[in-house]
């Protein structure tokens, strides 16, 4: 035998190494003492130049084999159109969920049910969209806390919303907004996930019809969409959803009120200047024109009242969606503005709902608004109006506090100790500061005070803390979602990964520390939410054999047993029923005629965890993921004559390579 010498050689080498290891003299000669760091750990630390802080960070984040993370980070995958699921504190990427972009591992977009989900997100014209710019993942909530059931995410580029079911971590629904082409302040949920809010960004003519930019003030509008969520069906109910027309400012992030502010939705804006750009014509570019005013408007919307108006009040219907007009919104007192400093970015409601924090972006403060004051000012009304007649509540009437944090405050999350954490883009730091009022916690520092600024690397955008945007935040970790990584990782060319930095948010009175750098080499993530892992209750395998993940029911064409394998021919339509189990497909020979329509039903009849099979047909761009119990039907035209092997694409067993068959297409 040619290789027979290799094994003994390898074993000898290994034994030699082990022996050498055992004989290496102890560098310090000290035996590890009880409680102290063992000497060999110290020698590793010395060898690698690790500081005590590094060792602390390693001990905080290292996850021994088989142990599970306590928290799960759901992070936007940015323009990869996906969602990343990351374990915390290990910061290991556990899974990437395909949402707006075809993804072959999950069999997403290569035939079968997932292709149908993707297709629903195409433009009404039929134009195919195969990517998305995912921005803000939002977990479903019950009483203002995550319930671990669903995840929503918006596509800024195309104004779409996706629903992911956390029982199987698969995208179940993609909705193309019928009247908007750009969104940003999505996909925030109301406290019991009554509505998923999709806020607008760049104003366009409603229904994205053509209108010259000269008609910006008259024709261009923003639309705030309230998608009605049906938790039993696990889908958005489009018929019960509605939109509200807003002035053509560039609306930005949004958040739904909770607790004291339940019933309200807050939306930021910039470009209340209604700048229309045109740098090439000598006009001020957007970046300058949209940043001229000292203040923009925080939008305050009474969504409960708006839902009543949508049901029974005056609306108009465009492309099948009910729209509450801007004039109606003003008349019915659904919409109020209050000034916010200069092109702000994030708007975040505190755990109690008593305060709303707006990050200044171009202003060094966070401005804190009081819900009670806002409600009082709304009741009083205001004679000061914007050009569209929307009442502007005076800042003095709504403001609770302003805290100077430094340069570029963007987004704010909270903990259960009365601290707020704000991402500081220009300072490249996480600012920790104290809350007051109903959210005042255990902190020893005075209210509304900056406590610490921790440098992060670099250019932090969003920020996440443990359930830090809910009514019941935790304490312990903050994740800085840094846009630039510059020198943090090996140089792998000019396209650099983002850097998710795990921060120990520390107890009150102590200092925050950076614990771990996690490169995200997939697009440009935006928002993320960090949830307790024990809230998740996913399937281990699908609940029964023949489960159709798109319908949640037994598929009528499910192949439940090996005995049901068969080929049924009806003229030019060939139906194949294939049970899938280790390590064979049945039938293994499928012969059709060129031009036949092939309808292939495949059911993974396994009940064992991780007994996953794939099904691909070479040359036909088909690849399915068949998880235990899952049924998929793929329909295609046999338009290429020849012999095409089909095989299992998940390494399922010792005889995985043998799990194949031939798809034979007889030429015409």
């Amino acid at each position, binding site marked *: 035998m040619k290789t027979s010498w290799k094994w003994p050689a390898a074993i000898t080498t290994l034994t030699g190494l082990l022996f050498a290891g055992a004989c290496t003299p102890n560098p310090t000669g000290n035996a590890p003492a009880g409680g102290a760091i063992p000497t060999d750990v110290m020698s590793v630390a010395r060898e690698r130049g690790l500081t005590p802080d590094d060792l602390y960070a390693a001990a905080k984040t290292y996850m021994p084999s088989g142990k599970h993370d306590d928290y799960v980070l759901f992070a936007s995958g940015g323009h990869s159109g996906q969602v990343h699921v990351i374990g915390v504190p290990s910061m290991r990427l556990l899974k990437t969920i395909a949402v707006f972009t075809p993804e072959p591992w999950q069999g997403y977009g290569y035939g079968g049910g997932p292709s149908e989900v993707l297709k629903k997100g195409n433009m009404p014209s039929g134009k195919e969209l195969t990517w998305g710019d995912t921005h803000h993942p939002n977990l479903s909530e019950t009483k203002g806390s995550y319930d671990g059931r669903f995840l929503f995410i918006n596509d800024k580029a195309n104004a779409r919303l996706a629903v992911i079911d956390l029982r199987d971590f698969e995208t179940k629904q993609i909705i193309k907004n019928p009247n908007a082409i750009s969104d940003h302040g999505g996909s925030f949920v109301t406290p019991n996930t009554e509505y998923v809010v999709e806020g607008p960004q760049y104003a366009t003519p409603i229904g994205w019809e053509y209108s010259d930019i000269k008609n910006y003030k008259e024709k261009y509008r923003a639309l705030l969409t309230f998608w009605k969520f049906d938790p039993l069906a696990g889908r958005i109910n489009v018929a019960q959803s509605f939109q509200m027309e807003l002035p053509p400012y560039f609306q930005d992030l949004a958040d739904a009120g909770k607790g004291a502010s339940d019933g309200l939705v807050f939306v930021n804006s910039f470009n209340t200047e209604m700048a229309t750009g045109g740098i090439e014509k000598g006009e001020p570019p957007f970046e300058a024109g949209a940043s001229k005013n000292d203040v923009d408007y925080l939008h305050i919307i009474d969504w409960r009242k708006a839902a009543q108006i949508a049901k029974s009040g005056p609306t108009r219907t465009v492309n099948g969606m009910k729209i509450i007009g801007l004039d109606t919104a003003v008349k019915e007192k659904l919409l109020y503005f209050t000034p916010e400093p200069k092109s702000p970015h994030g708007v975040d409601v505190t755990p109690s709902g008593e305060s709303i924090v707006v990050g200044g972006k171009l202003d060094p403060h966070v401005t804190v608004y009081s819900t009670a004051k806002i409600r009082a000012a709304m009741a009083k009304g205001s004679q000061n109006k914007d050009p569209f007649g929307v009442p502007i509540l005076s800042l003095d009437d709504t403001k609770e506090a302003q805290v100077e944090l430094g340069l570029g405050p963007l987004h704010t999350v909270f903990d259960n100790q009365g601290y707020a954490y704000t991402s500081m883009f220009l300072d490249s730091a996480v600012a920790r500061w104290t809350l007051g009022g109903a959210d005042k916690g255990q902190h020893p520092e005075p209210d509304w005070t900056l406590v610490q600024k921790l440098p992060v690397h670099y250019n932090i955008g969003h920020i996440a803390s443990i359930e830090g945007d809910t009514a019941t935040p935790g304490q312990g970790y903050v994740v800085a979602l840094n846009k630039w990584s510059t020198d943090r990782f090996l140089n792998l060319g000019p396209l650099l990964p983002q850097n998710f930095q795990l921060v120990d948010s520390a107890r009150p009175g102590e200092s925050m520390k950076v614990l771990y750098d996690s490169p995200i080499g997939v697009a440009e993530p935006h928002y993320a939410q960090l949830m307790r892992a024990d809230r998740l209750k996913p399937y281990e395998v699908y609940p029964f054999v023949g489960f159709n993940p798109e319908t949640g029911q037994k598929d009528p064409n499910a192949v439940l047993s090996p005995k049901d394998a068969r080929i049924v021919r009806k003229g030019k339509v060939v139906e194949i029923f294939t049970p899938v*189990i280790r390590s064979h497909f049945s039938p293994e020979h499928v012969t059709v005629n060129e031009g036949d329509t092939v309808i292939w039903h495949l059911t993974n009849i396994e009940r*064992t965890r991780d007994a996953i099979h794939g099904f691909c047909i070479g040359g036909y761009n088909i690849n399915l993921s068949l998880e235990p119990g899952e049924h998929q039907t793929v329909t295609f035209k046999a338009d290429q004559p020849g012999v095409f092997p089909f095989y299992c694409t998940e390494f399922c067993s010792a005889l995985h390579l*043998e799990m194949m068959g031939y798809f034979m297409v007889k030429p015409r």
Partner: protein
Amino acid sequence: MSELKVVLADGSQRPLNDFFWPHLLLMLASLLLCLSVFLPFWSIKMNAPQFPDGLKAVLYIDRVEGHVQEIDGLNHYLGMPPLDEGGKLERKVSLGAVGLMSLLILGTLFVHNRWAGAMGVPALVFPWVFLADLQLILYRYGHSVDPESALGGAIKPFTPPVIGVGKIGQFITEASFGAGFYLSLAAAGCVLAGLWMHRRIYREVALARRRAGVP
């Protein structure tokens, strides 16, 4: 109660307890036997690196439970029949048979001659018949490896041990008896003791009758 006496045909007296105990034991035996059908008789746990929680087949008197589908799936590589094929007849008649045995035991309460002994025999031998049959099924099962199957050439015919640890491929098997089997053993013990006491007292009754000249 211990002072209560029964007057026999010839006027001699026996403590009531001499009647009470065999009746109690035999009724208990019948009850235990009935209960045993709800509990597992035997189980085999198969541990392998890729199954951190192991695979388990749990044998009840009338069915097999546990990771049957997975074990069948793995065994198909060896060309072995599904677990369901083993002891088909036994599983089909088992409930009826146990019911009959229980009734026969109860019958001995009313049959006061040597036939009572015969009626107790099935329950007495039942656990041992179960064991022997299980051994036979396991032997046949392990010897049904098909050399033409995918992995059949790599595994020699084997007999999984009825009790204790064995090894098949990458699996370490661990077989043990279940509560149902122990109940059936206890029932057999009760039958044995009960019938012995039964014979002792009813023999006295018969002798007393003979002495008194009662037919």
